[in-house]
């Protein structure tokens, strides 16, 4: 389990004043969780994710991890140990699909044979085996994000944690819906733990087990929702729309 406690996170504005973005923000991420973070635009969602991913150490607070559920928490260094999927398409454009997936293994000098097996398994997982030699510009946006997930999974992240910052927002609605289903399938099959930032209430309702609703700046947790309905959710069902309405009422 991961324990995130951000006491305060400030940025400097161009006018050299302090901008307090996050204050007393606390939450846990459990094994095999699917947690979404929603909140008003500019409330600090990306900032949270960058702290979680280990890019930003300039904050007051702590990032802790306990391998078992025995409350033995230790400080956690995320870089190289959790998967990160940014909003923009992020495949290295000069490497083909296969080499993109290999990147994290290559820099760790993992033996070739082991790399091959991992690449094979992940390409198979997303059903893209025949695209291995393609360059990123030769595949669709949806495919790019699937390969980005493979690349993140290749390094075998701690607790299979992947953090995603609006990963589907650059896709059209139809691709987006089908990718949401693909993501759930991967999540289920691989027992992933996912922290998912989105603007989209429908997306959060469709995907998550838990939803964190944040307040405006400085952001803290306004409300934590558990979504009890089982996956294979029907976007048109009454239950689904009720949850959506609830979320919406908190956002406004």
């Amino acid at each position: 389990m991961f324990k995130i406690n951000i006491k305060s996170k400030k940025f400097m504005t161009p006018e050299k004043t302090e901008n307090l973005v996050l204050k007393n923000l606390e939450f846990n991420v459990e094994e095999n969780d699917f947690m979404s973070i929603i909140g008003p635009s500019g409330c600090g969602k990306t900032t949270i994710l960058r702290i979680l991913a280990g890019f930003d150490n300039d904050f007051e607070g702590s990032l802790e991890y306990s391998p078992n559920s025995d409350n033995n928490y230790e400080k956690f260094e995320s870089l190289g140990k959790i998967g990160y999927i940014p909003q923009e398409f992020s495949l290295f454009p000069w490497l083909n699909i296969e080499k993109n997936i290999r990147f994290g293994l290559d820099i760790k000098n993992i033996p070739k044979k082991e790399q091959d097996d991992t690449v094979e398994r992940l390409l198979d997982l997303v059903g893209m085996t025949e695209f291995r030699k393609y360059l990123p510009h030769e595949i669709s946006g949806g495919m790019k994000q699937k390969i980005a997930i493979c690349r993140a999974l290749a390094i075998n992240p701690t607790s299979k944690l992947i953090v995603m910052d609006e990963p589907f927002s650059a896709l059209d609605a139809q691709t987006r819906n089908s990718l949401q289903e693909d993501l759930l399938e991967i999540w289920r099959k691989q027992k992933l733990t996912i922290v998912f930032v989105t603007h989209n209430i429908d997306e959060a309702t469709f995907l998550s087990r838990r939803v964190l609703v944040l307040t405006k700046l400085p952001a803290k947790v306004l409300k934590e929702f558990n979504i009890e309905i089982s996956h294979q959710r029907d976007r048109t069902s009454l239950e689904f729309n009720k949850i959506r309405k609830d979320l919406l009422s908190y956002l406004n």
Partner: protein
Amino acid sequence: MEKITITSEKKPKFRIIVNITLGFALFIGFWYIFVFILQISHNGISVVPYPHDAFKSFFFLFSHPYDGVTLIEHVGASLFRVFVGVLYAFIIAIPLGIVVAINPILDGIIKPIIEMIRPIPPIAWIPFAIITFGLSTASHAFIIFMGAFFPLLQNIYDGVRQSSKVYQDVARSLGASRSQIAWDVILPSILPNIITGLRVAIGVGWMCVIAAEMMGISGAGIGYFINYMKNIGHYSNMVAGMLMIAIIGLGINGIFVLIEKYALNWKLNQ
């Protein structure tokens, strides 16, 4: 109503060949007319040779050395100087460009120096080169260096500056160290800028070497040859030398087109 046909983007090969031939024929035609007009206005004497005379000299010079030196040897001497000058520029500009683009303090210190030296045209360095390095390859290389260095530096600097932060973030999240990010992310992502920089650098270097040779730094090189032929009044040889420069320029360009097509395929289609 007339039907409008939309021609496809990719022209067929023969069409390209026809276009090139047509353009070439047009050029030769104008050349003839130009020389003809010169002749009329100068009582039947033209100092500029007709195309056929120039081409005859051109092919003749391939197999017949002039003063013991063939045209190819002159070209070789010039190309070697360009190679040396550009090589030095390359070796210095790549690390400097990367470091300056990444480090704001160094940027602040080095930028002003660069901006001060850059406006001096490379050719204005010729007298300086002669008094410093004498009449040597080093002299030529220095002048070419002064021409090639700045475009290379600028391209690399811009490349690093524009190199997407996202790729660096992803690499970090996958566990890449600083040096791995530099080698495996920044370097490949600025490869197109390096190639563009080199293309410009070699172009400028080629101009500089010819100018330097014409200023008489040495007794070899295509620039020297052209100038020498002018001085002794052998104008068809002079123009043949110019033709040689054109052909080398085309060749260099062709090499870069190929590099971009095969090595930078990902960039062109982005």
